[in-house]
């Protein structure tokens, strides 16, 4: 049934770990993702090479996002900007909600939920997101997500949902 999916009342932090793949016409990346979210201005997003070697880290603090890539450090206003610079043009802002099985706020959307209230399909910001599986039939936390926009394709397999430890 097409309805309006739950708008986030996100205040509690979360921490996910899993595998992520990103494809576009000329880029193909995959690896491990470790993402801790305390609040919009306090997150750590780590992407590791497919064999656990190498990768990048993006830290957001109030008013500043920092990308660590090897010895270099880059600063920008948003994690999204830095992710694109590092070769991972992910819709980070919206993804923070999508990974939680929710729509991002303040933006037009089309959503579809299954009878147990889990989001199964969503269109937002030009992306088409499919929730392929959830932790279990009643859990609000997705396990397998695929998102496409034009030639871009993103696949996320969330293996662990952990509690965030936010100082």
């Amino acid at each position, binding site marked *: 049934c097409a309805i309006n999916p739950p708008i986030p009342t996100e205040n509690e932090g979360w921490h996910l770990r899993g*595998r*992520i*793949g990103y*494809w576009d016409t000329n880029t*193909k990346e*995959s690896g*491990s993702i*470790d993402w801790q979210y305390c609040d919009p201005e306090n997150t750590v997003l*780590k992407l*590791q*090479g*497919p*064999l*656990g*070697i*190498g*990768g*990048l*880290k993006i830290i957001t603090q109030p008013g500043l996002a920092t990308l*660590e*890539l*090897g*010895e270099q450090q880059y600063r920008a206003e948003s994690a999204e900007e830095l992710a694109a610079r590092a070769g991972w043009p992910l819709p980070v802002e919206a993804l923070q909600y999508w990974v939680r099985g929710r729509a991002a706020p303040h933006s037009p959307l089309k959503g579809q939920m299954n009878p147990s209230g889990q989001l199964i399909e969503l269109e937002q910001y030009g992306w088409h997101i499919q929730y392929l599986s959830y932790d279990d039939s009643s859990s609000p936390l997705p396990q397998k997500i695929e998102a496409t926009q034009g030639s871009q394709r993103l*696949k996320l*397999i969330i*293996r662990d949902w952990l509690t965030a430890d936010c100082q």
Partner: protein
Amino acid sequence: ASNNAAEQLQMLLAKNQTIQASFEQTVSSEEGDVLQQSQGAIALSRPNHFRWESTEPFHYLVIGNGKTLWRYDADLEQLDVEPFDAQLADTPALIFSASPEALTAAYQISKNEKAAAGVDEFILLPNASGLFSELRLQFKNGGLVEMQLVDNLQQHSRILFKKAKYNIKLNESLFRFDDSPEALERLSQ
């Protein structure tokens, strides 16, 4: 002198025409806390033939035969086939299949004189920046036993090779990606 270390390393590598082993890998942060542990199997055959398959906790397979490079992420069901390119391979296994000239051209090689008795430890510092900033290779009685590297996030990766077999005939099919449905099915277990 360092070139002597390079020669010693080349001699040891030349003695390991093929290697087949299982491995256990531990990735820890600069501060030393364990970030990730994985295990799998490798097969190497000089020159330029290698197979690096990590099976736990994620299933990722890289195969190179000098002409083609296959990278398959079984969890994501993503296969990437490219002309062979060392940079793309993302795996230190390349060291073993690299020719002596390629090795000394790409790395400053020195020996750790303070290594434990019976262990030959070589330190390789890449001339060009890439996936790792330091790689150490340890040999015992001529066989590769351990590899350590510091990657571009300053994380330490330690790879222990177990049940290693050296210079045995390796089946050519190990170094070709089998994309038949049955093989893909097996990979996705």
